[in-house]
């Protein structure tokens, strides 16, 4: 059983919650500040828990995948390497995205991060299953949205993640009317179609 909770989980989760709890700009106008504080902590805790559980289950899913046969003469060693790779990838992803919600000026919230992480996990599964081209995205925050960008062979995709939405802009030339297209990529089919276009 692989656990993503090793190493970062408890420590990271606590530090994240503390960070939110201690955030100096977050003043309270509530008449019951203690109640508000504990609700806030529970709220954030539950989202972080969801996020980590989700990544954990994905790692397990990949680990248990029956089609993933090994041709290595050292299958256990190879499997360990794969698990470590995936684990470190997801750790890196979470750690790179979480700080966006803690900038004092940022309005990126954890729901947005959860949405983006879920999306990219689906994409990584599609990429892995089909052996598509892959590159890490450039990640930025824009107002309340997370922005991921990829470039490949004269083509580009920009993804905008809000709390509930995942919008794309495809770019293959300078003309906004005829060489750019925007839309929504939320289902697996939409995500795969988008990535097929970029990777081809």
């Amino acid at each position: 059983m692989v656990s993503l909770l090793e190493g970062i989980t408890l420590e990271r989760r606590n530090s994240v919650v503390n960070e939110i709890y201690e955030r100096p700009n977050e003043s309270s106008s509530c008449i019951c500040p203690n109640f508000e504080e504990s609700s806030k902590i529970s709220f954030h805790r539950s989202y972080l828990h969801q996020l980590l559980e989700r990544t954990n289950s994905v790692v397990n899913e990949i680990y248990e995948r029956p089609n993933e046969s090994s041709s290595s003469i050292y299958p256990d060693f190879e499997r360990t390497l794969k698990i470590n790779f995936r684990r470190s990838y997801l750790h890196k992803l979470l750690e790179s995205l979480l700080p966006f919600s803690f900038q004092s000026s940022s309005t990126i919230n954890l729901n947005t991060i959860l949405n983006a992480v879920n999306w990219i996990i689906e994409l990584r599964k599609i990429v892995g299953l089909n052996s598509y081209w892959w590159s890490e995205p450039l990640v930025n925050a824009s107002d309340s949205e997370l922005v991921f960008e990829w470039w490949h062979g004269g083509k580009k995709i920009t993804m905008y993640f809000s709390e509930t939405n995942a919008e794309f802009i495809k770019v293959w030339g300078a003309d906004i009317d005829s060489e750019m297209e925007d839309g929504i990529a939320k289902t697996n089919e939409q995500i795969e179609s988008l990535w097929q276009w970029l990777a081809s």
Partner: protein
Amino acid sequence: MVEDFVADDELLYRCVFYPTSDGSKNYKLEGSQVFASSQAFRDTSSSPSVDRAVLCSYNPTYTQKNVEDGVISLICQSVRLIDGVVQRDSKGNEEFKYKIDVFPRPLLDNEAHAQIEPTPAYRNEKIFRKLRERLAFLANQRSWEILPWEFRQNIS
């Protein structure tokens, strides 16, 4: 004396911060090319600032806020030729096209300052997203005036 019109053939500089105030980067190395992100043209008033090269002695370091920053460039005419920024109604029918122009907006401490502005003002952020893509695409067609610091280090 600051000219009150930006000529079509003027070179415009845009600073690409290293890193930005929120700790992220607005460029990426992909293959052998450093791409400027569309987010390099982000602006709270949807009017990205540029510096007019003619008013800063064609010296792109003038536009850097820090020595680590990169600087990209655009030709004014290529910005004015952008005619595909379209406002559509809820059924997708074209209502009108935004006119994109470059206006001199000199500041007390920066007489070379200009802005890329739409007429009329954008009705929503989504319209500005596509303009940013276009501006980044145009900038990426040109060489960087100054590469971000980490790539300068790699080259030297």
